């Protein structure tokens, strides 16, 4: 029981970390681009 609890717990956390690293890695670059667009042109709040 304890073995399976810790196996699932650690497995779920590692899986979550993999998914978030991929997701934030892909979306974060766009976020940075948008932030700089807004800083360059403050009148355009959407950064488009």
């Amino acid at each position, binding site marked *: 029981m304890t073995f399976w609890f810790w196996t699932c717990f650690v497995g779920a956390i590692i899986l979550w970390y993999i998914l978030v690293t991929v997701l934030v*890695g892909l979306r974060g670059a766009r976020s*940075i681009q948008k932030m700089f667009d807004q800083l360059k042109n403050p009148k355009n709040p959407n950064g488009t």
Partner: protein
Amino acid sequence: MTNFNWFVDGPIVLLYLIGTISAGLWVRRYIQKLDDFLVAGRKVDLYLGIASLSATEFGIATCMANAELGFKYGFAGITPGIALTLAMLLVGYTGFCIKPLRMRNVITIPELFDSVFGEKVRWASGVVIVLGGLLNMGVFLRQAGDFLAVVCGFDLSYLEIIMTIILAGIALYTILGGMLAVLVTDYLQFVVMGIGLISVVLLLISKFGWTELYLSLEQNIGDRAFNPFHDGTYGLDRIALDLLTAFASVLTWQTMITRVLAAKDVKTGQRIYQGTSPFFLVRFTIPVILGVVALHYFGPDPNVTNVKLAMPGLLAAVVPVGLLGILVAAMLAADMSTNSSYMIAWSSVIYNDIMKPIHQGMWSNAKSIRWNRVLIALIGVFLLLYGLWYPLKGDLWVYMQVTGTVYLASMSVILIAACYWKAANNWGAIAAIVVGSVIPVGYLILQQLESTQGLVLSVGPYKVGSATYLITAIAMVVGSMMKNKFQRK
């Protein structure tokens, strides 16, 4: 012995360092106003916020401290991570305190106190925040130096030089690029850190076998490795302090709250907290696994002089050439993001709250930014000196909790009172600041004196830490009620 190869791993680390420092320097052209320098013009969105907050809160010191918990307590060492995750999720979901804080458009928490309790409380809050924050951060460099010395195979006599070089690189881009440089490098560091840590943990689990690691824990630590409530393991007093520290950190730790304050709006600030909350389980689970593997590899009495060095010793011996370079880059990434964020966080408090009586908010943007750069450089010098001479005694995580309590207890109590208790006033706030800082600082001093060491150890840091929160809250209530009573007379 280490597997680190200067011809294979060395260039990987060098490439990462050049890339990240160049990116940090490149963004300095976007700094025009003080808000750009300190809170990135409040333009941070969800994904950048999650990357930045996660990277900041995971450094080499954290990794070594939490691996030490894994080595000593097994999976029970994850408990503070569970407490932090719950606290951040709850605060992010409800917006408790962070909502009114972000809505005021302040740069620091003491700035909010100014409008509720007056300028003196703001100044005193700034002093304790900087005191607690710098003491807490003071051990980061030495831990990073120890880690790199063991993993890369440096002689420990080169520790000071390694620490100075690391700090100079971090200070360079933080001084020039401010919060914008911190955010961009945090993003790069989040990605590099993720790749390095995930690869190494999966490699170690496949190399030693999950079942073998579990059985090894059973044999070396017993049932208490899996249950923090088990007698003689973690203990209720330690869990109580973990919970109090977790909630107080999420509400007031300047490097965390800066991400909420830099968010583009209140809702994004709350979502950054919600999205980052599971990372605090990662922050403990990954290092705890490294500690557990180190325990399995070395046994309960490792041939290393210091338990903290068991984890880097394991990595140096087991991780193969090539991957070791990625791991060192990942750990450097973790450390650089933490140090840069901490440097700018404390400099912003010194400038915004402690120096307020001097500049009165009248300095030009250029002059303000220049002073913040000077402050960051001075913090760097302090870190170097403090990191060299402070002799750390006891658990690293306990040191960080106790030093954090110097301001966490008082600031969390005052923040809650400022947001939700109308009868709160400056007497209560000052009483809370004095009580909340005197107890943990006294503990640290008494711990170093031979005559009082025995007494301090018998009480223990956990009871002292929890008592600090309770007594600080009482001081806030009693102080406020006293002023209200005198004023009515």
